[in-house]
């Protein structure tokens, strides 16, 4: 009998939900074009996950506004109805930041994809959030300019998504991250207000809300327009490919290059398993006998590059490189890079599934990290290949697994979490450029204490008091950390006397 009433309650709630969803869809239909409102299950399916397909959920509906006015209208309707909004760009994110909320809607900015204005004299581009990263550089190319941040997914990922994640790329040691290359973000708040963070000058009055908005993972406001900086395309770029017979030596060579006062345009490292996976696939000419290779790039004027390449070669040789090749043409340079950029698809070729981590560590701790990862491979019975933005300490271990083998995904997640924990312990961070999203939310408890988490929640409330924008992402609740059983403690001291509350 008791069971019966429970079922009845559930039925009632499901009827209730259908009615509520129908009402919400009817409201949204008044402000969105028919093609911009998806609510039939088959149509929702492509939106159930982003680039991290291990986590899936169906939203109530997917909204694809075409104008800022439609975004404002959508925000007001959802706020009035108390419906969570999950923003989405191209869906290439690797941290499940665009994972739908089962009681919410997905707000895709994919249809707002116009480059509004390119000013070659002021060296800025004003673009809508759905514009692809690479297309900004393509549009700026006739003027000898480009947009510097180049995440590996740049042919697909959007500027709106780059702003949300503060995306980097292989050139960010020299040219900076998204936060260094965006002047202004125009956005709509959950209240439906249009606001501008930053402006077309180099700074803005008041607090630096632009810095807060960039990398906020869609928790603070919906980006509707972005002004990016364009920089002169260097006359020339050349890359050195250096082989090492020992991973630690390669790591020391990285420190030696920086220590010699050189800031390479790109400085990347791949270990033996990564080289072995990539080479048959791309035929980049990588040294299959090397324990690790470094790609070290110089760009600038022809004279500048010649001078810098000579300095780099000297340092790499002195650091014990067993082989050095300098690209002799643009085609060869791109081929050297093609292998690095294809590391993720190559992992997909050698393994049914792979899981990409994103910790950053101080460069000098690289040897310790790689040794620990080797031990973890044994512990979890899984293989791992490493690609590494060596110049800025950002590691991308790719854990290879098979989702169809029971238990492998769970072992993979535990493996990944252990790498992230170690990143924090070595003085680094759990995410260098992919974001926390839903994926690393528990690892946030390793990196931050209760006071910092409270401060993050306060920042969130300052923009979105009701907590409707991308809820349950990026910043864990204290309750969640308590359940997860981990909370970062500074200096080994328990300084959260109120923790017993949870």
């Amino acid at each position, binding site marked *: 009998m008791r069971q019966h009433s429970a079922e009845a309650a559930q039925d009632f709630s499901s009827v209730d939900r259908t009615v509520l969803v129908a009402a919400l869809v009817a409201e949204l239909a008044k402000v969105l074009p028919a093609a911009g409102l998806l609510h039939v299950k088959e149509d929702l399916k492509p939106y159930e996950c982003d680039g991290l397909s291990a986590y899936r959920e169906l939203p109530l509906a997917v909204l694809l506004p075409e104008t800022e006015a439609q975004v404002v209208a959508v925000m007001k309707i959802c706020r009035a109805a108390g419906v969570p909004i999950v923003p989405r760009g191209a869906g290439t994110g690797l941290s499940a930041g665009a994972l739908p909320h089962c009681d919410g809607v997905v707000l895709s900015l994919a249809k707002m994809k116009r480059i509004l204005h390119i000013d070659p004299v002021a060296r*800025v581009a004003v673009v809508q959030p759905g514009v692809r990263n690479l297309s900004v550089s393509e549009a700026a190319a006739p003027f000898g300019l480009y947009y510097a941040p180049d995440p590996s997914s740049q042919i697909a990922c959007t500027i709106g998504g780059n702003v949300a994640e503060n995306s980097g790329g292989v050139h960010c040691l020299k040219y900076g991250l998204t936060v260094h290359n965006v002047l202004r973000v125009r956005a709509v708040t959950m209240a439906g207000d249009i606001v501008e963070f930053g402006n077309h000058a180099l700074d803005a009055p008041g607090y630096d809300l632009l810095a807060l908005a960039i990398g906020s993972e869609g928790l603070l406001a919906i980006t509707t327009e972005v002004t990016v900086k364009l920089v002169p395309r260097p006359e020339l770029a050349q890359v050195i490919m250096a082989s090492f017979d020992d991973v630690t030596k390669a790591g020391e060579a990285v420190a030696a290059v920086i220590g010699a006062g050189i800031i390479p345009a790109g400085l990347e490292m791949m270990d033996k398993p990564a080289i072995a996976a990539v080479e048959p696939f791309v035929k980049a000419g990588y040294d299959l006998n090397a324990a690790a290779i470094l790609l070290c790039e110089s760009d600038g004027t022809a004279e500048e590059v010649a001078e810098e390449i000579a300095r780099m070669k000297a340092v790499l040789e002195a650091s014990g490189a067993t082989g050095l090749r300098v690209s002799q043409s643009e085609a060869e340079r791109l081929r050297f890079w093609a292998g690095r950029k294809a590391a993720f698809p190559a992992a997909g070729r050698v393994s049914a599934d792979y899981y990409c981590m994103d910790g950053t560590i101080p460069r000098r701790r690289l040897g310790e990290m790689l040794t620990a990862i080797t031990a973890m491979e044994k512990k979890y019975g899984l293989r791992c290949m490493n690609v590494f933005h060596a110049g800025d300490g950002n590691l991308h271990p790719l854990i290879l697994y098979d989702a169809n083998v029971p238990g492998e995904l769970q072992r993979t997640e535990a493996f990944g979490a252990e790498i992230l924990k170690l990143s924090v312990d070595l003085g680094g961070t759990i995410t260098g450029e992919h974001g926390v999203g839903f994926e690393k939310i528990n690892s946030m408890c390793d990196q931050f204490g209760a006071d910092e988490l409270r401060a993050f929640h306060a920042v969130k409330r300052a923009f979105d*008091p009701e907590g409707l924008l991308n809820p349950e992402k990026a910043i864990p609740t204290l309750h969640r950390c308590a359940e997860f059983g981990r909370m970062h403690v500074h200096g080994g001291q328990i300084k959260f006397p109120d923790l017993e509350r949870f």
Partner: protein
Amino acid sequence: MSDRTQDDFRDRILARKPLRLRGGGSKDFYGGIIVGDVLDTRAYRGIVSYEPTELVVTARCGTPLAELEAALAQRGQFLACEPPRFAPGTTVGGAVASGLSGSRRATAGSVRDFVLGVKVMDGEGRVLNFGGQVMKNVAGFDVSRLMVGSLGTLGLILEVSLKVLPLPQGDASLCFDMPQDKALAALNHWGGQPLPLVASCWTQDVLTLRLSGACAAVASACAKLGGERLDATVAGDFWTALRDQSLEFFAGETPLWRFSVPSVVPPLALPDLPQLIEWGGAQRWVRGELPAAAFALAAKVDGHATLFRGGDKANGVFAPLQAPLLEVHRRLKQSFDPYGVFNPGRLYPAF
């Protein structure tokens, strides 16, 4: 010693009376009129860690900027954002809290761009850590950068980690006789070319450029651009004086206004007032009594104005904020400093 200093700071903060956070006092003139007892940060000083090959230095707030810069120079590195030192005692904490950047800002980046992490004490005396010591870090909101330029109104910056860069190998300065409109056009044209142009200064119809980077690149740019090459010592002194505002232009009691505008904005309609232009056209200094309409004038060209030094602060010092943004500011202030302890009124009258 330092722990005790931190405890002293906490005791002062927990008294919940307005405090005026102060390092060397070199920027006392900057910002709104402030009240409260001075909390002197200079006892909390010293470089905590410095790893040249990691390109990161961490220092306590009360560390003299000169001491930090000397330590970097010893290892052939520098703070490329070159925060101004208006007086000898300028501290690291003050440089970060004010967020003011030197002459390389348009190309090398601002103080905010170089901040990797901070340790702050909030209005309830809690020590919070944001960011870290690595270049790439997207865990949590970027509260470190929020602190930059907040003029100490959100918390007491205890410690800061900054990205450092190797000192450029080559350096040269060139002078050109040019009226303002021609100089602005030239700066914007050159800015779009792959030249090692790192700083610029126009005043009294003379444009001075600084080129810095690989020796070969500097040499070829000098040949390409022409102009008159300055003696290295004269040039070094000039850029230092510009950075620290000890050039003749900045002397005297006449109010100093700062216009932060897009670099392509034509000469401001203030022809009779002395002007000095930096940052490739994006930072323009004006000497004179300007009405409150100066704020609107700057906003019209998509920039903003600041009454930087002197003058009548009754009409405000910083440009007014858009209403929804002002509300966000209020909420942030309320959460970091619920009892209004930190520098009340220094940024905006309301906080």
